[in-house]
């Protein structure tokens, strides 16, 4: 069967599945809308968290980034998984015991202040909007490549689907759709990986395969290191970033992960404290499957690509080469006019430009796998992008309808009114996200780092200090968050957008990149919070009792407002 038909069939089946689940799990109350009624099982929550977490970036881009950066790509692997240890050990159980609907809820109540709540709402909105724009773009990209529709039409189809199940089902609909989406995306990610691992190393387990030998008995990683040396790239297994920077970027991604509101909120949906711990464990187990496979795909596709194209006649290239050239993600310029493709690190002689997103999407084609496997990758990419987009949209709508309207502007709003407000803000959020998907601002890529940096600089210290110290007061937490966020914004604007005089790599403080600066901003937040709290009054007695109470797991009760 033809690839187009396969793709329509698989995308059609999965989309109708999502819509079916949405109709079956409509939300009837605000509690169902915000936290799925608080009765999700740890296993289902783990699956949903994994789908929520693994975005278009994890599915489509990450293996490609690792493929081009080798060892340096490890920051994403460790950074985006290590954060779950922090979540499970330091945040999730206590936030569940606290029993609220949103992260700003915790910040606002623990620091007995609407100023703190507003700062938290502001951060939650920036982080989520930054993130969601990239997801809609991912949906458009997959549609345009695999279904040959216009990229904007793709974004609009994605918007309608998300709108349907996020607005109708709220957290309840999203949770059960995400369970299905995890299954789709992991199947789609693993099938080609297993096929290619067998092809290249004879081992069906990619995690072991990429440490194995090729048909000639040469270790694959040694072969790739050799190819890299020959073409003038840094050795694949060694990388070229400074150690200090790798350290700081990894830390910023870990702490940022633990501070992302759409991840934290998933732990409000389970029944009790021990379930919150358990779901973090399940979540990381399900994430681990993809994250340990991605570096294997990176090695397979890098080796395959170099061997297929380098020093080969352009006119003999397989058909996938021309299809991807048409999308503009692959381009060839015969500088020395010899009709052959030279792929080199030296940009004055290099004739081939490859976009990193191709590595996962084109990998099955490069390896010559059957059409249904290629179509499966399209369905998987869509599942990854849609599930993350939906989780983010929920955070945005809850921030508006719950944290802003219910808690600050109009506290006497009825349950029904709040639910309507939640649905309306979800609709507005989808439209804004769609707009950014169709007209992507060029700062999207730069701002994803900002999203993690901001989460690390704002939420993480405020939540940790709120749980692990009884004496942290509103003055300390608010000034810490504001100084942390401003430091992060300043560094990012200076080095990514050339504000405040701009600057180049040489001007980075201690050689720390803007991506790694979240760690510095987080440390600044901790220091400012602690120092200020020493000179200002202790929090009221009731608040200190709340802190004592959240440390004890029993009697978690139900999530309330």
């Amino acid at each position: 069967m033809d690839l187009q038909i396969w793709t329509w069939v698989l995308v059609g089946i999965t989309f109708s599945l999502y819509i079916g689940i949405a109709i079956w799990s409509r939300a009837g109350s605000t509690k169902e809308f915000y936290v799925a009624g608080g009765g999700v099982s740890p296993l289902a929550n783990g699956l949903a968290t994994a789908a929520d977490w693994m975005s278009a970036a994890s599915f489509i881009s990450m293996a490609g980034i690792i493929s081009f950066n080798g060892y340096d790509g490890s920051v994403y692997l460790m950074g985006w998984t290590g954060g779950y240890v922090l979540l499970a050990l330091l945040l999730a159980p206590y936030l569940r015991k606290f029993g609220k609907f949103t992260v700003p809820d915790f910040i606002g109540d623990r620091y007995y202040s609407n100023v703190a709540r507003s700062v938290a709402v502001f951060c939650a909105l920036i982080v989520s909007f930054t993130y969601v724009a990239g997801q809609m773009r991912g949906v458009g990209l997959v549609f345009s490549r695999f279904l040959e529709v216009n990229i904007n039409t793709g974004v609009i189809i994605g918007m309608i689907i998300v709108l349907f199940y996020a607005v109708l089902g709220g957290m309840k609909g999203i949770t059960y759709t995400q369970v299905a989406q995890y299954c789709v995306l992991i199947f789609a990610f693993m099938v080609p990986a297993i096929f290619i691992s067998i092809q290249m190393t004879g081992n069906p387990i990619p995690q072991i395969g990429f440490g194995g030998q090729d048909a000639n008995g040469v270790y694959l990683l040694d072969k790739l290191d050799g190819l890299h040396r020959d073409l003038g790239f840094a050795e694949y297994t060694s990388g070229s970033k400074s150690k200090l920077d790798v350290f700081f970027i990894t830390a910023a991604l870990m702490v940022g992960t633990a501070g992302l509101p759409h991840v934290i909120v998933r732990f409000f949906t389970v029944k009790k404290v021990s379930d919150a711990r358990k779901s973090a464990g399940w979540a990381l187990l399900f994430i681990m499957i993809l994250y340990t496979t991605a570096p294997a795909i990176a090695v397979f596709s890098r080796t395959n690509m170099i061997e297929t194209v380098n020093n080969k006649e352009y006119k003999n290239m397989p058909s996938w080469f021309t299809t991807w050239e048409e999308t503009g993600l692959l381009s060839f310029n015969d500088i020395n006019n010899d009709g052959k493709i030279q792929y080199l690190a030296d940009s004055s002689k290099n004739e081939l430009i490859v976009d990193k997103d191709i590595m996962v999407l084109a990998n099955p084609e490069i390896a010559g796998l059957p059409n249904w496997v290629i179509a499966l990758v399209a369905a998987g990419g869509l599942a990854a992008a849609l599930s993350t987009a939906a989780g983010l949209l929920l955070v945005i709508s809850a921030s508006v309808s719950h944290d802003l309207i219910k808690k600050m502007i109009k506290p006497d709003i009825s349950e029904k009114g709040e639910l309507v407000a939640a649905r309306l803000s979800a609709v507005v959020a989808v439209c804004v996200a769609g707009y950014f998907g169709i007209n992507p601002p060029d700062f999207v890529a730069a701002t994803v780092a900002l999203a993690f940096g901001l989460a690390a600089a704002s939420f993480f210290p405020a939540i940790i200090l709120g749980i692990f110290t009884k004496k942290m007061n509103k003055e300390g937490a608010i000034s810490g968050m504001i100084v942390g966020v401003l430091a992060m914004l300043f560094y990012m604007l200076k080095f990514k957008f050339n504000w405040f005089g701009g600057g180049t790599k040489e001007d980075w403080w201690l050689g720390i990149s803007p991506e790694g600066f979240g760690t510095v901003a987080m440390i600044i937040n901790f220091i400012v919070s602690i120092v200020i709290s020493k000179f200002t009054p202790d929090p009221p007695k009731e608040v200190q009792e709340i802190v004592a109470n959240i440390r004890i797991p029993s009697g978690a009760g139900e999530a309330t407002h």
Partner: protein
Amino acid sequence: MKISDQKKYWKTNLKYLSILLSIWFVVSYGFGIVLVDELNSIRMGGFKLGFWFAQQGSIYVFTILIFVYIKLMNKLDAKYNLDS
């Protein structure tokens, strides 16, 4: 629950946290970043060990750490009758 029990419960929890987070730190920042060059001189099949920890080993250890914590805390909760 008595205040003294609450304190003991919390102290044990903090002890677990510090042990598990030290392991978390060592496998990722230690083996995967700071000591990566030293470990890379050791090979495990086709993998250089430092590279393996950065791209595989640390992630496995993270997952195991969470499940160990779940186990430890379920036991601790049972000891203090907090597993309602």
